[in-house]
């Protein structure tokens, strides 16, 4: 894949932007309709199958959720949330995988040039060849998605099946989804469909139904239809995900200020040297100094 398929790349700045997309392709979006999901885990298994991932066989952890957490060997995880509201039982399932943010915090935080890229179709992908394992993406992700591999120390996460999407296929999870809770298509189509579905849900009595497409990260490449958009926490989702303040300060303030500071210091030093010159001690007997080197060494050895 050439650089021309990349929109954003870590380690670049406005001064030196990544090569701009020449191959204009439609932005693709995965839609997760939580109101149609029954938590069967097909997406989770299909993801592992396609991407050749095999997490260790764990143990029962008090829930249907297995493995217990995402890992470098588990990029998609079905999370289970059960609760009672107004005496009515709710069992909600969250398709947990990379959200493919439009403004990805992981990419912003990445310490390595080109280790995280945003492809022209909008998916955010990690290049494990370049990844150094610093873990900045792990702590920066507002959705807590990337994980470091215990063996190769590189960060991994859902690639939106970049190997499939680049040749025009849907991701493995979407293909396998039984109830139609996962869909894949151009961003335009998915938003259109989501709009219809939300309207349908409202008619069915879910007054708070809505689309989870958080603005804090510029919108996401995986959008979610929720029963109650005011309570994304009930799905284990952050209410207002965004690139955090420290990451922003780090990137937008400390880096430029640091650069200025360093350059300024160097400039002043050089100017000072040029204008003032060296500060030379006029020895009582300048000649004596010339000998002092060898002598000093000797004296120290005594």
């Amino acid at each position, binding site marked *: *894949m*050439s*650089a021309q*398929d*990349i929109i954003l*790349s870590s380690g670049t700045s406005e001064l030196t932007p990544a*090569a701009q997309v020449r191959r204009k392709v439609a932005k693709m979006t995965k839609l997760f309709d939580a109101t149609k999901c029954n938590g*069967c*885990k*097909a997406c*989770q*298994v*299909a993801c*592992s*199958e*396609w991407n050749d991932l095999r997490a260790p066989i764990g143990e029962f952890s008090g829930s249907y959720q297995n493995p217990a957490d995402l890992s470098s060997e588990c990029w998609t995880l079905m999370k289970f949330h059960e609760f009672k509201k107004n005496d009515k039982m709710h069992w909600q399932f969250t398709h947990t995988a990379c959200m493919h943010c439009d403004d990805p915090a992981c990419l912003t935080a990445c310490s390595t040039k*080109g*280790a995280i*890229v945003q492809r022209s179709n909008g998916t955010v*992908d*990690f*290049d494990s*060849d*370049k990844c150094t394992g610093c873990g900045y993406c792990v702590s920066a992700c507002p959705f807590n998605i990337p994980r470091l591999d215990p063996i190769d120390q590189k960060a991994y996460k859902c*690639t939106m099946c*970049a*190997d*499939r999407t*680049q*040749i025009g296929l849907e991701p*493995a999870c979407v*293909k*396998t*989804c*039984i109830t139609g809770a996962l869909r894949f298509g151009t961003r335009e189509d998915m938003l259109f469909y989501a709009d219809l579905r939300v309207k349908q849900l409202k008619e069915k009595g879910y007054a708070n139904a809505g689309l989870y497409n958080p603005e804090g990260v510029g919108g996401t490449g995986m959008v979610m239809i929720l029963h109650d958009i005011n309570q994304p926490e009930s799905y284990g989702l952050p209410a207002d995900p965004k690139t955090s303040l420290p990451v922003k300060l780090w990137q937008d303030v400390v880096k430029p200020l640091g650069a200025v500071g360093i350059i300024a210091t160097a400039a002043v030093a050089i100017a000072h040297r040029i204008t003032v010159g060296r500060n030379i001690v006029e020895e009582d007997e300048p000649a004596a100094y010339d000998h002092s080197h060898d002598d000093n060494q000797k004296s120290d050895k005594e």
Partner: protein
Amino acid sequence: MDRRQFFKLCACGATTSAIAALGMMPGEAMAAPREYKLLRAKETRNNCCYCSVGCGLLMYSHGTVGKNSEQSIFHIEGDVDNPVNRGALCPKGAGLVDYVNSPNRNQYPEVREPGTNEWKRISWQEAYSRIARHMKDDRDANLIETNEAGTTVNRWLTTGMMTSSAQPNEGGFITHKFARATGLVAIDTIARN
């Protein structure tokens, strides 16, 4: 240019090359997605072996069908043409490749001799002969040819058979013929539970 300048220039050049060698040179490759793994793999249509929805499968195997390649299945996904599943598969179906390639597949005919604590590998012919011998001895001794009323009944009750409900019909029919020809009555499938 005097000699001094020449040396300076050389030094600069060397430094620049060194820096370039340290990684300043352009031309590094951008992130490329993993190569699509099914290119040219052999595709075979099948149906899921688990529940009775009968989902269509596409199985992908290594190797051409050429005479020197041993095919092995490395990926299974839903058949989008099959109207019942239209490409979708449940978690069991989506993980079928690990079922086909399970480390717990039986490989050879084996026998466990009475009272022992181990499997012994045997040949197919030995297996056939020993099983047929057991059957014949038992059948010859215990086949009931007529009942008390004198009706021909020809039933063999001292051997039974639990039959598979995952094998194809054709295997099922062979099984049925096998059972009834020998006089087995006590045959059953897991259909009951």
